[in-house]
C-alpha cells in the first residue's frame, strides 16, 4: 500500500509500506572519531563526545554541526577512536599517591613551628 499522509509531500513521495528498502549495509558506518572542543582561547580542549565519519575532514564538519552549533567554540580537534591508547579502569590504582610520596604535596611543608621556635630561642 502507498502511504497516505496528512503531509502532502509524504503522500506525493509514493512510499510503499511493504518495501524492504533502507536496511544498512555492513560498511555504512565509517570510522569513529573522538571530538575535542575548545570553548575559548586560553582554555584546554575538552572531550565532548564521538561521531562517525569517513575521514578527518568530514569528521570536523560533522563535529561542528553536532557539538558547536550554538557558538561557544573557537577550535575543534578530531582523533580517530582507534588511535587513542588508553589506560584500563581496572588499573586505576596506578594513580593513587602512596603515603611515602607525600613529599609531592605542598601541604606537608610546614616551617612556621620551626621559625617560631628559632625566634623564641634567639630572644631568650
Amino acid at each position: 500500500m502507498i502511504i497516505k499522509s496528512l503531509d502532502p509531500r509524504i503522500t506525493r513521495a509514493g512510499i510503499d509500506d511493504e518495501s524492504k528498502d533502507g536496511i544498512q549495509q555492513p560498511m555504512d558506518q565509517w570510522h569513529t572519531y573522538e571530538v575535542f572542543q575548545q570553548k575559548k582561547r586560553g582554555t584546554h580542549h575538552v572531550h565532548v563526545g564521538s561521531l562517525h565519519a569517513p575521514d578527518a575532514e568530514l569528521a570536523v564538519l560533522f563535529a561542528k554541526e553536532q557539538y558547536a552549533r550554538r557558538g561557544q567554540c573557537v577550535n575543534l580537534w578530531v582523533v580517530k577512536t582507534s588511535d587513542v591508547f588508553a589506560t584500563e579502569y581496572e588499573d586505576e590504582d596506578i594513580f593513587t599517591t602512596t603515603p611515602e610520596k607525600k613529599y609531592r604535596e605542598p601541604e606537608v611543608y610546614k616551617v612556621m613551628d620551626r621559625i617560631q621556635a628559632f625566634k623564641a630561642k634567639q630572644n631568650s
Partner: protein
Amino acid sequence: MYGNAYVENTGNINSLTAGEDPVKLAEFEARIAAGEKIEPQDWMPKEYRRQLIRMIEQHAHSEIIGSLPEGTWITRAPGFRRKLALMAKVQDEVGHAQLLYSACETLGKSREDMINDLINGKSKYSNIFNYPAETWADSAVIAWLVDAGAIINQLTNSKGSYGPYCRALDRICAEESFHLKYGHDNVVFLATGTPKQRQMVQEALHRWWPPLMHFFGPSDKISQHTETLMKWKVKMASNDDMRQQFLDMYVPKIWDLGLTVPDPNLKKNETTGKWEYTEPDWEEFKRVINGDGPCNKERLAVRRMAEEKGRWVRNAILKKDAQYVAPLA
C-alpha cells in the same frame, strides 16, 4: 520518555543476576551505591548491559521518529522566524539521536544494527509519535508538552549510573530548554489570539492529552526486577512519580491560559498532594505500541525512505579502509 514508556522486554529470565560472579557483582553494586558512574570498559552484569542497550536504543529511535511529526510542519510553519526555530529544534532532536546512538554503541551494539532494528520493527520508540500532528497547533502542543515530558524523563535518567548515557543526557537537557520555551511561546500565542486560534490550540490539546497520559508508561509492577533496576540506577523513578511531576508542573500552566484537558476527574488532592485522574486507556496504549496506531506505518516508511535515498551519499564518501570501532566514552 523515552526510557520507561515501553512494553518491557524481559524475556523469560527469572533473575537479573543469574550466573554472575558474586564478587564482581558486589563490587559493581558498591560502586553504584557510592554514586560512581560505570564506564564502558568496566565489568558489568549481562542484564545491566542488555537493559541499557534496550533503553538507550529506544530513546535514540524516539528522537529520530519524534522529529517526523514536527518536521512535517517546517514547510507550513506560519512565518519565517517560526520556520527557522522549528528547523533548529528538529535538527537538535536528530542530534540527540546521534548522541544516544554513540552512547549505546559503547555497550557493544553497532549503529547499523540499531537502525536496521528500527526499520524492520524489532525495536520500539516512544509511542506518542505514532499519533499525527493534524494542525500547526498540534506541533505547538508537541513542542511544549511532549518535550516537557521528555525533559522530566531525561533529567531523571541523567542521574543514572551509566557514564556515557548520563553525559549524553546532560548535553540533551541543555538544548531542551529552548524546545520548551519555543513550544510554550507558540501555545501562548495561539491561546491569546483570535477565537479561531484559541479553538485550534484547545482541540490540539484534547487530541494530545490521552497520549501524554500514556507517555510515562503504565504503573510499575512491584517486583524484584524493578527493584534491581532501581538499585543499578538504570531506572531512576517510577512511571507514576514522573507522571505526577508532569501534572504538577504543567496542568496549572494549562489552566492558567483558560484551556481545558479532556478529563473531568483531573484534580489535585490537597491532602495527599497527588493528582487524581481517570486511568488512561492502557489497552489502546498496547495496541498502538504493537503497531496498530494511526501513524506507525507512515513513521517507519518515511524512515526507510530516508535511509534508502541517503545511501548514495554515504557510498560516495565511503573510504575503503574504513574500520569500525566502538566509540570510547
